[in-house]
Each structure stands twice: as C-alpha cells, then as structure tokens.
C-alpha cells in the first residue's frame, strides 16, 4: 500500500512535465542512442512528442496508423482522445520511466502530449526472421515438413494452429536479469499432469541468470541432472512433434529467439520415437522403431565387441571367420584398440568437418573421407578391411536416431566402451553396460524415471514405446506419465472374429 503510494507520488513528480524535460530524461535513459528518434509536433495548441527506436518498429504502421491520424487533426489532442481515435488496439498508459524503456526496447512507439498525467505506448514491433522452412535437422519422409523459426510469434502461431483448442494453455514467463527473454510454457489443461506442469513452472520461475542464449542451453539449467551424458528433455524443431507430445499430456516450452521447442518429461525411449512412426502403418512403424533400438545397440556395442573378440577372445570367433579376419589383420601392426580408435576418430572428424563446412565442400569431404581415406588406410596397412565395415555400420546406426542429441550421446559413449574392451575384453564391455544401466536408472526427467516404462515396469506402455499396435487396440495414452485423461478414443471394433465365408 505504502509502496504504491510512493510510486504514485514519484510518478507525480515525473508527470506532468514539459516536452524538453521529457526529451532530456529519455535521451539520458537511452544513453544517446543514435537509433532513438524523438519527433516533436505541434497540432493545434498541443505539443506532441512521438518517440521510438527506429530499428525496432514497423515504419509503415507508424506512418499510417499513428502519424497520419495524429497530424491530420486540426484542433487540440488529449491523451484520452488519442486513445480513442488512433486505429491501434494495444495502447498502454505508462507513468514510470522504467516501464517506458521496457516497452521501447521491445518495439513500442511512445506518444506524449505536453502537461498530461502520463504517456501512451503502442507496440508495433518489427522483427526480422527467416520464413518457415523445411526442417533439415530432423527430417521426416512422411507428415508435415515445416519447422520452428527463431520468432516466438511464428512458433506460437504454428502450435496454436495445429492445436486449435481453447484447452491449450500458454503461460508467459520472463527469464533473464540483464537480457530478458520471453518463455512460453504450453500444455493442455485437461490432460497434462499437474505435478509436471508445476515442476516445470517452478524451475523456469526460479531460474536466475543474466541471459539465455537459446532453448538448448536453457535445458541445461533446468534439467534434473547436469552430470549425466543423456539429454533429459526432448528438443525438437518440428511443430508436429511438439504438438504430438503435448496432445499426449506432456509439457512444452518455447523460447523466444530460438527455433527449438523443449518437451518434458521424456524417457530414453522417446528419443528413438519419430512422429513418422505414427504416419506409418502400425506394423511397418513397429518394424522401424525396433530397427532403431537394434541400431542403438549396434552403434554402441559393435566396435567394442569386435575389439574385445580380436584382442582377447579369439575362441568365440568361429574358425572360418577367424581365418579371413586373421588375413585381413595380418598387415596391421597395431593392437585392435588403436586401430579402432583411429578409425572411429576418423569418422568423427569427417562428421564434424561435414557439419562445419559449406554444403558444397561438405559433399566432397564425404567422398574424400569415405573412399579415399578408407581405401588408403587399408592399403597402407593401418587398418583392416573388416574393421572399416564394422566402424561404418556403427556410425550409420548412430545416425538413425531421430534426435540428433541422443545420436551424439551414443557416439560419445562408444569411445570409453572401446577403451574398456581393449582393456578388459568382454568383461570390460559388460561392466560398461552395467554401469550405463545403473546410470540410466538414476536419471530422471522432470522427476520421472528415465527408463519408463521398462522400470518402473508398466506393461501397458510398451505399446507406443517399443512397438506400435493397431489402432483398435491402442486407444490409451501413456499410463506412466499419468495424464488426467487416459482414453484417447473409445474402442469401437468388436473383438469377435467372423467365421470364414459368413
């Protein structure tokens, strides 16, 4: 109470004031910014000051909706009149210098009529951003192709358009002490688990930091365990994936200036799930999803297993295979670990170089790396043919994951695994696997276990996690995440089978 009184008295100290005083105060607050425009007009007997940051506003709108109606009138203006007459809906009466500044930097035009009790701001921002484009980080064959852009408005538009229901809640949270960034927490009111929403809201609100670079760094501040190598929130640039998850009762977060949407809670298995599986027929979709899990195992374990077998356990390789392996390895002077590390490193270098170089050069690198270096390495006796195949398969397999984040995680995991296998053979690999499983059991996402539905075990969720069932069976949402409403649709088809020729 006292405070508001204080503020009022302070505001009274500021307004009303002469245009010259206001000009001085504003310019001081803007640190004499050359982009800051102050225009004084005399309409009738009233002096009007219009001010804005030129690079932040839409000039067409300024001219057509503000300046021309303002200047076309012959008699005096009052603030109330401006509010009534200007063809813009979002006028805000400001009396506090700080609030005025906040509005200005987010693209507002301020209008002050001399000796009035306050001033009006109109938000007409203009943000330059790229158009909605096809996603190239998470490309899909079937289904929608559009991707998020850097503009929060566009992203919100895409999400709202897909989920045109008033059930969709979008909460605005501002994060950042020095540079403020708008964050939107989105979920379906009638579906999302209250605890999840509350946890996410709490984490975002409690976040105190100077600035947020992007959505991805933001997740590193709000995720459950920073020490883990596994991503705990799903990040996507596909609006279709974002809305798909929200309709399953999850919580989504959009960050201004970032083309990435965050989805939580998530599990390890959801990183191998693509919206494309839903567009496929259930049996084909199941096959592809299981294929991805096989790819996960291959990419993490194939090279280590090879190294272990060739270094320590010749006996587990059958004799016919052993002879061809032996002849291929005969010219190689290094132990298998070094050989494998060398090749894996080569593949990683190629990947990194391909990602950094311009597209046209990138293709050349692919050819150079794949054919020339591979062939030359074998010819020079640096590696064996078979290892090249092994490493190539595991590299390919690691790229099948629909999420780029989990793919890189697996590729990183492979290196300690190879070292372990070179050190302790299969026993070392097994110890590595056990360590990973124990680790995954410890990880949580938004407080929910990372290995759902495998542990805590929930048989009903195996459908849509490890495989997909036909639609007349699969009519429930995920039990593990406890959405408010379990049933997606009522089962209609009768289970009774018709007899032949009836």
């Amino acid at each position, binding site marked *: 109470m006292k405070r508001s009184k204080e503020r009022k008295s302070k505001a009274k100290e500021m307004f009303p004031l002469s245009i010259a005083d206001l000009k001085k105060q504003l310019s001081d607050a803007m640190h004499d910014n050359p982009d800051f425009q102050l225009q004084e007009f005399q309409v009738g007997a009233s002096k009007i000051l219009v001010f804005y940051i030129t690079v932040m506003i839409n000039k067409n709108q300024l001219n057509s909706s503000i300046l021309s109606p303002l200047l076309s009138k012959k008699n005096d203006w009052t603030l109330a009149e401006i509010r009534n007459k200007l063809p813009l809906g979002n006028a805000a009466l400001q009396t506090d210098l700080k609030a005025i500044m906040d509005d200005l930097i987010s693209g507002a035009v301020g209008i002050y009529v001399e000796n009035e009790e306050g001033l009006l701001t109109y938000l007409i921002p203009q943000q330059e951003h790229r158009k909605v484009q096809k996603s190239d980080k998470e490309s899909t064959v079937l289904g929608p192709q559009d991707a998020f852009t850097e503009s929060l408005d566009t992203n919100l538009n895409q999400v709202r358009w897909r989920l045109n229901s008033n059930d969709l809640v979008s909460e605005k949270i501002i994060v950042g002490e020095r540079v403020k960034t708008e964050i939107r927490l989105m979920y379906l009111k009638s579906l999302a688990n209250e605890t999840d929403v509350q946890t996410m809201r709490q984490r975002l609100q409690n976040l105190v930091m100077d600035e947020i670079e992007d959505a991805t760094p933001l997740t590193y501040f709000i995720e459950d365990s920073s020490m883990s190598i596994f991503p705990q929130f799903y990040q996507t640039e596909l609006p279709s994936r974002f809305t798909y998850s929200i309709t399953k009762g999850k919580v989504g977060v959009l960050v201004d200036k970032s083309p990435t949407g965050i989805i939580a809670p998530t599990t390890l298995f959801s990183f191998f799930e693509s919206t494309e599986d839903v567009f496929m027929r259930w049996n084909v979709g199941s096959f592809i999803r299981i294929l991805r899990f096989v790819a996960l195992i291959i990419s993490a374990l194939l090279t280590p297993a090879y190294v272990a077998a060739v270094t320590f356990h010749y006996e587990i390789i059958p004799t016919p295979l052993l002879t061809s392996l032996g002849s291929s390895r005969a010219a190689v002077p290094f132990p298998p670990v070094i050989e494998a590390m060398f090749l894996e490193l080569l593949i990683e270098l190629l990947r990194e170089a391909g990602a950094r170089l311009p597209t046209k050069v990138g293709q050349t690198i692919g050819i150079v790396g794949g054919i020339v270096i591979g062939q030359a390495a074998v010819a020079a006796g640096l590696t064996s043919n078979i290892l090249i195949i092994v490493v190539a398969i595991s590299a390919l397999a690691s790229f099948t994951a629909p999420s780029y984040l989990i793919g890189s995680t697996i590729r990183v995991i492979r290196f300690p695994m190879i070292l372990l296998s070179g050190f302790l053979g299969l026993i070392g690999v097994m110890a590595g696997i056990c360590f990973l499983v124990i*680790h995954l059991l410890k990880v949580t996402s938004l407080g929910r276990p990372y290995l759902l539905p495998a542990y805590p075990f929930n048989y009903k969720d195996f459908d849509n996690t490890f495989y997909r069932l036909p639609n007349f069976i699969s009519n429930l949402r995920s039990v593990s995440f406890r959405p408010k409403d379990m049933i997606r649709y009522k089962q209609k088809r009768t289970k009774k089978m018709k007899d032949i020729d009836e």
Partner: protein
Amino acid sequence: MNRGISVNPNVVVKPNLRIKAFYLFFIITSLQTGSGIMGVPRYIFMEAKQDAWISVLIAGGLIHLVVAVMLVILNKYENADILGIQMDIFGKWIGKLLGTGYIIYFFFVLVSVLVDYIQVIQIFVFPRVSPWLLSLMLILLIIYAVSGGLRVAVGVTFLFFFFSLWLLIFLYKPISLMDFEHFQPVLQASPAELLRGARKTVYSYIGLEILFFIYPFIDNKRKAKQSAHLGVLLTTFLILLVTVICIGYFSGRELVEQIWPVLVLFKIVEYAIIGRFDVLVVTEWMMVILPNIIFLTWMITYSMKRLYKVPQRKALYAVGATAFVGAGLVKNEVVILNYIDRVATAGFWIAFVYPMLLFPIVLIKRRKYTKQKDGKD
C-alpha cells in the same frame, strides 16, 4: 502391548521410497540364483547321486515353509524389519548384537560371491588377470548403484533379470543331448542322503533373508505373500532344471569333476557367428551376480544405519573398501571352495534355521497383536 520397554520396531518409509510387491518376485529370484546355481548340481549330486532332483524338490518345499514363517513373523508387526523385531524381542543390546551378526554374515556372503565370480572369470576367460582389478571394477559398480538407494537396486535387479533370462534358451542344446538312463535307478538314495543333498542346495537359496529387510518398504503388503512364494518357486524350478540337465548330460564321474557344471553345459553351444558360448555366459553372468552384491551391500549399509546411525554413504564406502581388500586377498582355489563352504553352512543356520527358532518366540511374545490395518490396504 509391551511396546513400552525400549525401541519401536517399526520403520517409517516415505511413500516415494516404497516399492511394489510385484518386484519382490524378481528380487527374491535374482538374489537366490546368484553364483550358487553355477555349481550347485555337483554338490547335490555328490550327496544324493541320481536322485539329486528329489533333494532339490525337498529343499524347495522347505524354503516355502521358511518363507511362510518369515511372513508370519513380519506380519506380527505393523511395519517392522528383522532388526527392529530382534530389538523388540531380545531387548536393545542383544537385538543390536544379533543385527551385527547379520551384517557380518552378509559381508562374508558378499565377499564369497565376489571371489566366486572373479575365480570363474579367471578360469573361463582371463587366466592371468589380477583379481584386484576385477574386484575394483565390481566394487565401483556396487558403490555407484547403492548410492542411488533402494530404487536403483530394485531397478537393477528387475532389468538384469530379463537381460539374463535369455541364457535359458540356449540350454536346449544340452537338453537335446540328455541321457535319461542316468536317472535310473530312481530312489536309490537314503532319506538321510536326500536331506544332506537338500542341505547342499542351501547356498543357492541364500538371499531369502532380503525378505526380512525389504518387507517394510513394500507398498501393497497383501500381494507380498504371493510374490515371495512365486519367487521361491521360480528359483526351485531353475535349480531343478539345471540339476536335471546336469545329471542327464554328464555321466556321474564327469559331474563330480566339474566345479561349475552349469557353465560347462554352455560350452557345446555353437553358431555360425559365435564359437565358444561359455565366454559369453560368463560375461553375461555379471548381470546375474550384480543384483546380488548390490542388494547385499544395500542390506549391510542399511543395517549399519539402522543399528548404529552411521550415515549410509560413509558405510557404503567403508564396506566397499573392505570388500575390495577381502575379495582381492582370497585367491587360492582350495581356500575359495573352503570359504564358500563355510559361508553356505552359516547361511543354512542364519537364513533358514534362525527364522524357525524365532517363530515360536515371536508368536508367544506378540500373541495379543492383531494387525489393525488388515483389510484396509
């Protein structure tokens, strides 16, 4: 009631730390089929010859009885574990002493499992690897898992149960090569021999004690009974299976010579991409023994906390370091077998006879107690 004397035996468990009775099945089975099952057919066979399978059945029946007795004892209290029950019955000091006995016993079992597995690795995979290295590796895994608490321990048990279950499929090969004449003549062993055989099965059944410790953590206790019995039933089935296969597959003289006949069974499995299957089995066996040693360590550290208020994390590091030294020191094959034999004997008395002795005492002492919450949960 005579609650007024000293300690409240009950344990208060936070809701988020509770586990479902469903997992008890996996916990009991996994803990029982640890390292013992690798060698148990030989021991039973040495006592009961071709009737060893009857010994297994007898042992299984007795274990069910023990489980029933344990559950009756536990149900005489609201939410107590054995540590609390002992203190309630025998007073604070004797109770603590008996609890310490449990801790020491578990520690010796822990070391025996470690030593046993390290020896198997040395014999089947790496003849010259240092036991210190293997022991360090296993201890680090234990410390990492136990520091995650009961939830992780249960998760490891549950997942590794399925990860190692597939090994059973490959028993089809020795099964197809079984000679049923090895079982004849039936019922040659005297009842005394059969019972001695049943007693030899005990090392495989060790692990049942977990019920006394984990019971307060179980959420829906009504289903615990079913879960526990089914778990024991599966263990009995597994031991019976390997015993029958071993007797059918090996001739009597061969079986006596094999220290780990079950691992040898896998030796003949061969495919176009895998030559020696037993190496894989020994590797995979880590997933069978890890739940064991993780739970043993959890029980040791948890008991230390309950009895002496030692912070569990500190206890964990201390136990890890001691077990590391212990497992590294016991090396000689004869010493190991002798040591495991002693642990098995101790296990017989502590895990199976002791509950039977405790049973009448608890019944008398708590005769007035009826569970109030019955019918509620």
